[in-house]
């Protein structure tokens, strides 16, 4: 059978229309599946990050509002024994948090300035690289370094890899040291590693991280580093901010205004 050029082009056109027609009709009717997971209430960003204003944070001596809120929200046990303790967010003196910025003649109020520490949700996280089970991984859509406690085998490679001590290991069953269980969040079990998750569960419900919400001094800012108009980007533009050990190449995403 010989087909004329005109007929060939016609046939090609019709079959292409037939192949794509369904999708076109779908999108015209607005029934095409919408992209992206999560509920419409969820807070989303391309790269979550945090800015902490240390002067504001130090205003009230011994304040632990953010730590208490975080640990209550996530069923973090309060274990007295330092060898077994679990922490997601805690305070350390400036000279320990930023050892390279320390010098022996520095003013005492700088040296002892309390610094809030938590997982830096590094953009280049060494913990993720070493985890053999992918129990910890960086969420591509927003940069959060996540934990899957179902998968963690407790090898603690990630603890060795993290240069910030952001991770804790459950040496004992944590349930016995939780004053009040929060049913909205699971506990962990003996033998797994845990750390801050930037409150991914709260973000999915449209809520800010528990520490940000709890801070009575509004010293903690949370937002999208990828959005030039975000509050944290404005702050980073106008204030001098430092990060912990950036020279290691981990690209930590917690910024401290000193």
């Amino acid at each position, binding site marked *: 059978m010989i087909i004329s050029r005109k007929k060939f082009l016609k046939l090609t056109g019709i079959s292409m229309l037939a192949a794509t027609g369904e999708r076109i009709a779908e999108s015209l009717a607005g029934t095409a599946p919408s992209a992206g*997971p*999560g*509920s419409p209430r969820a807070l989303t960003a391309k790269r979550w990050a945090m800015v902490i204003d240390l002067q504001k944070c130090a205003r009230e001596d011994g304040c632990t509002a953010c730590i208490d809120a975080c640990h209550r929200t996530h*069923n973090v046990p309060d274990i007295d024994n330092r060898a077994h303790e679990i922490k997601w967010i805690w305070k350390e003196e400036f000279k320990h948090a930023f050892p390279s910025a320390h010098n022996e003649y520095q003013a005492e109020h700088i040296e002892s300035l309390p610094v809030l520490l938590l997982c830096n949700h590094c953009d280049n996280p060494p913990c993720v690289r070493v985890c053999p089970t992918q129990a910890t991984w960086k*969420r591509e*859509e927003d940069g959060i370094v*996540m934990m*899957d*406690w*179902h998968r963690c085998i407790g090898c603690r490679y990630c603890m060795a890899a993290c240069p910030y001590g952001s991770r804790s290991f459950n040496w004992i*069953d944590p349930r016995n040291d939780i004053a*009040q*269980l*929060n*049913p*909205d969040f*699971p*506990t*962990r*079990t003996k033998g797994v590693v845990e750390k801050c998750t930037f409150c*991914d569960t709260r973000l*999915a419900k449209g809520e800010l991280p528990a520490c940000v919400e709890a801070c009575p001094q509004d010293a903690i800012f949370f937002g999208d580093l990828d959005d030039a108009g975000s509050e944290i980007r404005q702050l980073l533009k106008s204030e001098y901010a430092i990060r912990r050990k950036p020279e290691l190449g981990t690209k930590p995403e917690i910024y401290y205004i000193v």
Partner: protein
Amino acid sequence: MRDRSLIYLGLLIFLAVVTFPFTYNLAAGSGEMPDLEYPDNETQCVESKEFMRSSHMQLLVDWRESLVRENVRTHKTSDGRTYDISLTNTCLAACHTRKGDFCDRCHDYSGVENPYCWDCHIDPEQTERSAR
């Protein structure tokens, strides 16, 4: 054939030993299906009873992957209903409020006492008790 009686006796003992687990369970009444307490407020589960009986673990594993790894936090049933993915808040708090009379009874019956789900996932009834 002088040993006939001995052989029969031996066979009888053998049969008794081999069938002991069955006869024991029959006598103890533990061979019967457990009597489960169903929720008062709901007549329908996430999927059919038959599916849940055979495959609830697969469903829970799918939920786990979906929520933790893909950040998809709701489940659409095969007939179009939507549920929040949560063992504690959907399965337990909303329906099977007395875990002991549902989950545990069946788990005990099938010899999977205390699956390690409960090491981390909270039974809300327990938190109420601890708060009191």
